[in-house]
């Protein structure tokens, strides 16, 4: 297996390394096939399946007085539609983008939730590929919406030329270009990735550290328990971070769409 760290004198792989994030294949294939079907792939499939099946069955026979599943689905969708989409994009455009933003938020939340569920315990978003593609989709989306509304030249003029006197524009335009077209997708992806990666790493350090302390010197068991109590506290923190990062990703996507279609100056 790639990346087994050198342990102290014991079998506990401590400290955890980046290589520990590369999981082995679930099915014992070899060659290149042994790289793609890991626990991460299975978790992404399961969360997608949960989302699709839940929303399909919750709306199977919608009633005026909703049952539990329908109420849950309506609450989740209504939260995104009212507080994120319509608030940032206005009534009519907000309704158009609400399905995508709701899917985005719930997909990120369900993927992130695996990082605190036992047995799974790693979020697929701690591999840069998944946040990178979500950020790429958001990037293409807000540029496409802006170009479709204004045409390419006017959209570029709106987003690159700030309201400033003409002689300082050469200093400002590279900054605007860098900030709007390079930093935005990169920071969307890296913010989500780094939070999930660091959270998983922290949980690994405190969990494996407890075991490593025990195996190194059994009389220090009190510190092991302390380490495991920190793990519990960090799991609660991770729960907060999961929802917060999904919310921030969705809000920023909505804000970029709003910025792309707004008439500046």
């Amino acid at each position, binding site marked *: 297996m790639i990346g087994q760290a050198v342990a102290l004198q014991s079998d506990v792989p401590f400290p955890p390394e980046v290589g520990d994030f590369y999981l082995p294949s679930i099915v014992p294939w070899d060659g290149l096939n042994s790289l793609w079907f890991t626990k991460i792939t299975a978790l992404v499939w399961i969360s997608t399946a949960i989302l699709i099946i839940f929303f399909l069955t919750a709306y199977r026979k919608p009633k005026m007085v909703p049952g539990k599943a329908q109420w849950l689905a309506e609450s989740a969708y209504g939260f995104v539609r009212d507080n994120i989409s319509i608030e*940032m994009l*206005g009534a009519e455009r907000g309704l158009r983008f609400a399905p995508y933003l709701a899917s985005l938020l719930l997909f990120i939340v369900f993927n992130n939730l695996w990082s605190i569920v036992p047995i799974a315990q790693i979020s697929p978003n701690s591999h840069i590929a998944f946040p990178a593609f979500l950020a790429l989709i958001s990037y293409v989306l807000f540029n496409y919406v802006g170009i479709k509304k204004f045409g390419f030249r006017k959209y570029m003029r709106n987003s690159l030329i700030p309201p400033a006197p003409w002689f300082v524009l050469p200093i*400002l335009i590279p900054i605007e270009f*860098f900030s709007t077209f390079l930093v935005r997708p990169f*920071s969307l992806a890296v913010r989500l990735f780094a939070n999930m990666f660091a959270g998983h790493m922290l949980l690994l350090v405190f969990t494996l550290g407890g075991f490593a302390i025990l195996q190194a010197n059994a009389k220090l068991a009190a510190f092991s328990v302390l380490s495991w109590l920190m793990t519990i506290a960090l799991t609660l923190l991770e729960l907060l971070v999961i929802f917060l990062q999904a919310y921030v990703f969705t809000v920023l996507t909505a*804000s970029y769409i*709003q910025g792309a*279609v*707004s*008439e500046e100056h």
Partner: protein
Amino acid sequence: MAGDPPSQDPDKTPDATPTGADLGWTALSYLIGGMAVWGFIGWLVDRWVHSGGITTGIGVVIGCAGGIYLVIKRIGAPPPGSGSS
């Protein structure tokens, strides 16, 4: 929320969410982006004229000034007396 009137113009919704977090990230990205872009240009000029780091520093300062100017122009308040929000 429940009692809010819908926005007048579909494209003029205010940019500040109740948390304003997206404005914060924009401000930070203008600052860091300004320093990065002009620091990089300054570094290229440095390698061209072999000035030992001075032009890199000048580029960083110019970029920082540009970033602050952009933050003020894009996110800052219009001067008082030009109409209420």
